[in-house]
């Protein structure tokens, strides 16, 4: 009986020590010297970079996607080379080339340059998604539009694209999620995003566990919020489906 009691008290003590350790670490990592502000600012930066990169990515992706679909050999070639080069090189390398080489003498804010770099990267993947989406629409739809006298551009804009968007929406969401996580490399050009903030706290406190856990949880929550809200959008897009 005494043995169990000793063991139990010992366990309670261990848990208490462990817990007070966590509390101390928590204080050290997030409260002391207002370090939580680093993380909060980091969230803002991650969101800012991702959002702009997505917009740029869709724009570039649409143009390059149309190039790849074009019958014009030159445009087709441009589309092919673009996707080949971007998909064939690591995004860290692209980010660093764009920041340290292409924009070396341009003094814009770092996060804008990072957005451009990620937008250019994402554009290659989005272009393939858009190409697939447009090809997924039956040729009869284009023929019906053209037979009514609508021009090629009008047919594309009012008939093919709205249907294609619905088909490619899940794939686009996937690309956005990948992109958000990809921005965790902006630390390479000295931008303080979520990951860099966690890394900074880790170095300052020699405590790796809590900052990195916090980083993981924040990314997870951001992406969960995005997934849920995009789910609503998709439902709205599907209102013409009767299934």
């Amino acid at each position, binding site marked *: 009986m005494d043995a169990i009691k000793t063991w139990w008290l010992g366990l309670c003590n261990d848990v208490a020590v462990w817990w007070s350790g966590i509390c101390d670490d928590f204080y050290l990592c997030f409260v002391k010297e207002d370090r939580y502000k680093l993380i909060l600012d980091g969230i803002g930066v991650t969101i800012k970079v991702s959002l702009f990169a997505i917009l740029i990515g869709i724009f570039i992706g649409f143009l390059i996607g149309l190039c790849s679909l074009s019958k014009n050999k030159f445009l087709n070639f441009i589309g092919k080379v673009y996707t080949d080069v971007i998909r064939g090189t690591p995004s860290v390398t692209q980010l660093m080339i764009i920041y340290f080489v292409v924009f070396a003498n341009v003094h814009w804010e770092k996060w804008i340059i990072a957005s451009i770099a990620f937008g250019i990267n994402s554009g290659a993947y989005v272009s393939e998604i858009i190409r697939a989406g447009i090809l997924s629409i039956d040729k009869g739809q284009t023929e019906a539009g053209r*037979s*009514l006298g609508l021009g090629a551009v009008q047919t594309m804009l009012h008939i093919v694209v709205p*249907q294609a968007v619905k088909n490619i929406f899940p794939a686009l969401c996937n690309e956005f999620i990948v992109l958000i996580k990809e921005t965790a490399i902006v630390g390479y050009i000295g931008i303080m995003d979520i990951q860099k903030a966690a890394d900074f706290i880790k170095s300052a406190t020699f405590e790796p566990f809590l900052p990195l856990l916090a980083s993981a949880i924040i990314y997870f929550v951001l992406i969960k919020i995005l997934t849920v809200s995009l789910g609503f959008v998709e439902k709205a897009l599907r209102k013409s*489906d009767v299934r």
Partner: protein
Amino acid sequence: MITVKNLHKSFGKLNVLCGIDEHITQGEVVVVIGPSGSGKSTFLRCLNLLEEPTAGEIYIDGEIINAPKVNVNRIRQKMGMVFQQFNLFPHLTIMENITLAPVKLKKMTKEEAIKKGEELLQRVGLSDKANNYPAQLSGGQKQRVAIARALAMQPEIMLFDEPTSALDPEMVGEVLDVMKDLARSGMTMVVVTHEMGFAREVGTRVLFMDGGVIMESGSPEEIFGNPQNDRTKNFLSKVL
């Protein structure tokens, strides 16, 4: 109204149309019949340039349409087309399907187009479906909407590419009725079909095509009652 001179069309090495000469006048209902692969559909699709002819000329109202620099879109506005697979726009309601082209091409204001759309839906007997989506309609209803959609552009000519071939048998009648009504109103029509009953009853002229040429042309009485060409006799003996 439509004049076709020495029309040729080939896909790669395959010659689908091998010299077609034809003249269609206003108010005619020309029914094109023939075995599969005879070039009927290709001929029809050449008329509004969904297929570009390899050689030959097509004139609509005396104006050549398959020359460079011709505004194809303007020509197509004069011609409605109905497809075998309906090709309704699934992301738009029935009313939006009908009003899209007239509004975007600035032929009518939105209000005019909706008024016209209601009129047309009444004509094809689908007034209650204006706010439904295509997926909620039966095949026959879809094809009637497709006809209404083509008519909304107030075309001078209507082209039908096997409009009843994708329908369940019990729905063929409702579509043919709409087409008969249209023929009676004096619309110029070119119809590719396997419905011999329709050809006989509504057609003012029947073309029998085989091997990329028009083998025989004449009134339904002549073609069905007393065909001259051996191929025509052979084909009719199989389908009638």
